[in-house]
């Protein structure tokens, strides 16, 4: 195996897992196409690939959430002899010592961390629960791995990082020999990610094997022994990490030249939106803002950086016209907003791209055409005396489908048939068609493949060229640094002063995202036209 070429890897060379020719189809889509993968004891393998490359599907097959259409999964038993794993049975995977940390944590939030860990490990029909043994074992595990967390707190009170530690402890508590982590850093600050990597290396040194699913090259280079690259459901490359070449891996992942978005220099114009001392208190930190000042100007992209759940939702709701400030005010186009109303906002030239495009962005059973016109059906262009003008609605959709390259069976097809990337294009067609002056883009490229991602970026930059102000909320630092003119950091409902993007130090940004540095130094930012 190629990993044998890695001299720095001190493993006992014992093969732990062997995936052979795994194939899985979803309808016409081939998610996994004859994928092979080996893993040795104490080895960390990174499974690298774009969104939609088939990484998560492969791991879901390993863990028994899906059944492969073809191929075999072999796992070494305690004796080191490979034996086939029963497909479609999470219990079998658990018994074989496979633990999985999903991107969306599989935790019951109403239970304590301890409850979540022991859930399913004790005989279910018993009159009592005995926790002393579990506590002793966990105390030992925590001491040995550095995964410290209060096990008695209900999970909903824990931070994202703490929840992730609970998830890893869950696997370790079951004596996992193989740990699979699906995009573990997506929700962490750079510093938290570093500490996770340190933990993983420590665990690997004690013999744990790890598979990390990732789509970012830099972090897998930091932690893994070996890298396997997937693209379009196929394994397109595999190499030892210390022999890996950044550029060639990037090409393997994408399969073509990555179009690089370039920002032209451009002087910002008049302020388009300004938040003045806005406080929204909803009791819950992720839905609250505290004394936020913020401004975006014509021809400027203002990036909002932050770990998810720090008040981005509240900020987005406010700018989308779905919530109002408890204290403070919002000025749009120089006028104080008195009526916070999503319909009004949309009609006044605010383009709103929702964070969760499936949940908030489209009505699945309605047609593509109806979904494109949904913000404007009350306008004269699309109705007469309350009766819809289907002709006009259809015409707009036909144009939009061409202009925005929305791949769909046609304007009358139900929107639920569209892929994620095409839903996002549909939303762009809906909101950008009207040459908006302000754009709220909330996680606009999350989960999209490279093509759709660069299309979204191109459209945002184009709008900026046209003089629109863009508020870009994102958890992806690369995206923020590429697109933004200014970046502000949101942490626990506080928003920092905006800093010119080219002045920003990545690690500084990380510290601010973690709340290590004060984020609410709300001095008027440089370049504020007084």
């Amino acid at each position: 195996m190629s990993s044998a070429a890695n001299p720095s890897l001190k493993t006992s060379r014992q093969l732990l897992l062997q995936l052979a020719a795994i194939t899985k189809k979803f309808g016409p889509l081939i998610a996994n196409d004859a994928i092979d993968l080996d893993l040795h004891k104490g080895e960390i393998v990174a499974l690298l690939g774009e969104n939609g490359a088939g990484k998560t599907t492969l791991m879901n097959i390993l863990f028994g959430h899906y059944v492969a259409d073809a191929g075999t999964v072999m796992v070494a038993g305690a004796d080191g002899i490979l034996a086939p794993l029963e497909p479609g049975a999470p219990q079998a995977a658990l018994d074989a010592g496979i633990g999985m940390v999903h991107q969306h944590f599989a935790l019951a939030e109403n239970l304590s961390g301890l409850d979540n860990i022991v859930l399913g490990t004790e005989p279910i029909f018993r009159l009592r629960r005995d926790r002393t043994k579990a506590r002793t074992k966990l105390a030992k595990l925590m001491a040995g791995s550095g995964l410290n967390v209060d096990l008695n707190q209900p999970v909903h009170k824990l931070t994202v990082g703490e929840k992730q530690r609970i998830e890893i402890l869950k696997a370790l508590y079951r004596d996992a020999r193989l740990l699979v982590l699906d995009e573990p850093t997506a929700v962490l600050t750079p510093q938290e990610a570093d500490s996770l990597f340190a933990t993983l290396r420590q665990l690997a040194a004690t013999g744990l094997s790890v598979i990390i699913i990732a789509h970012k090259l830099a972090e897998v280079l930091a932690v893994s022994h070996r890298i396997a690259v997937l693209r379009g459901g196929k394994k397109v490359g595999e190499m030892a990490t210390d022999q890996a070449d950044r550029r060639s891996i990037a090409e393997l992942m994408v399969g073509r030249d990555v179009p690089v978005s370039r920002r032209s220099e451009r002087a910002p114009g008049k302020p388009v939106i300004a938040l003045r001392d806005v406080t929204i208190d909803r009791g819950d930190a992720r839905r609250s803002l505290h004394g936020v000042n913020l401004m975006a100007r014509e021809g400027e992209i203002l990036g909002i950086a932050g770990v998810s759940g720090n008040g981005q939702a509240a900020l987005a709701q406010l700018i989308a016209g779905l919530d109002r400030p408890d204290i403070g005010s919002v000025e749009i186009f120089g006028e104080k907003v008195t009526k916070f109303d999503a319909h009004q906002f949309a009609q006044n030239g605010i383009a709103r791209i929702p964070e969760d495009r499936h949940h908030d962005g489209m009505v699945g059973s309605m047609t593509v055409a109806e979904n494109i016109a949904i913000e404007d059906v009350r306008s004269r262009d699309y109705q007469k005396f309350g009766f819809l003008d289907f002709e006009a609605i259809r015409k707009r959709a036909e144009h939009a489908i061409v202009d925005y390259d929305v791949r769909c069976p046609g304007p009358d097809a139900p929107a639920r048939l569209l892929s994620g990337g095409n839903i996002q294009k549909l939303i762009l067609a809906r909101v950008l068609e009207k040459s908006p002056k302000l754009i709220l883009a909330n996680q606009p490229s999350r989960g999209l493949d490279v093509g759709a991602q660069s299309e979204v970026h191109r459209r945002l930059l184009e709008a900026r060229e046209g003089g629109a102000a863009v508020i870009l909320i994102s958890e992806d630092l690369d995206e923020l640094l590429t697109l933004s003119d200014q970046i502000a950091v949101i942490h626990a409902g506080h928003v920092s002063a905006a800093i010119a993007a080219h002045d920003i130090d990545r690690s500084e940004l990380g510290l601010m995202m973690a709340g290590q540095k004060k984020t609410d130094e709300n001095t008027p930012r440089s370049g504020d036209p007084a």
Partner: protein
Amino acid sequence: MIRFEPRTNPSAIMVYGIPVMAAIIAILLAAIPLALAGAPIIKAYGLMISGAFGSMFSISEMLTRATPLILTGLAAAIAFRAKLWNIGAEGQLYMGSMAAVAIGSGVIDGPSYIMIPVVLIAGAVAGAVMLIGPTLLKTRLGVDEVVTTLLLNFIVILFVQMMLEGVLKDPMSMGWPQSEPVIDSAVLPPLIERMRVHLGLVIALTCAVALAIFVKRTVWGFEIRAVGENAAAARFSGISVTKTMVLVAMLSGGLAGLAGVSEVAGTRGYLATDLSPGYGYAGIVVAMLARLSPVGVIISAVFVASVFVGADSMSRAIGVSSYLADLIVAMSLLCVLIGGFLTRFKVRFEHQKSAG
């Protein structure tokens, strides 16, 4: 192992055929209770069919039954479209009938072309008002409307009883708790002489067609569909979910109220607490069998009505309890639910693959 695979586009045959299949299966399943009751099965089915369709009279009876069912079916269909779980059509029906009686039994008088619209509007308004409360409690406070509308049914029946023993009591009724009769000018006239089927049927059919156009072709219908299918996306796009829900509540409650008017002013002539044998609840089944389509409601209401009328007449002839009708209706609801599942998923039976 059984697996379910989502279907992307169910065929038209599935969409329209499954409710029909569900109805047929429910009727066939009724053979089991019939057999257990010791009845001659074939004869019983024959009696049911002739009871519902055997003569002009029986068809008229069946359509008389179908009239309130179309209206309560529409009430459920429009509400369920918007995911407003209005299970209170029974109460709304009684409120509508009470309003019709309060206004239509002699307080005011006039020619029919005025009196009939007046009682219809009064009933619709009363029904609508009944549903607005629970709807606002749902949108403002998050109180589950299923439970509130269900409980209101019991409250309304008691309220009607109280009124019938009080201000609405007919002094001529010799102690029976019933209202004064609806005056002649407010009565919905029969469509055919010496038959019971009355103008209410025409009103119900008109409502069905109007509602179909409303949902499909108007801005408000568009918004109702959007809110029903994905309230979050509708809200994000700028549609007011509360306003849409209140509109739906007025339509749904109003339609159920009309069913009440139709019953007192068309079928019965006066109000008593046994006015409805559960039309409000049966309306839910009618709507589900119609897959929430307003025009489909007409067909499924005719089906449910013929089950009721047919079972009644069979029951009189061979003494099997007429609760058989309720049983068939309940089973057809469960069958159409399962059928709805089959339009969304393919069921695959597969052998556990050996893992070697």
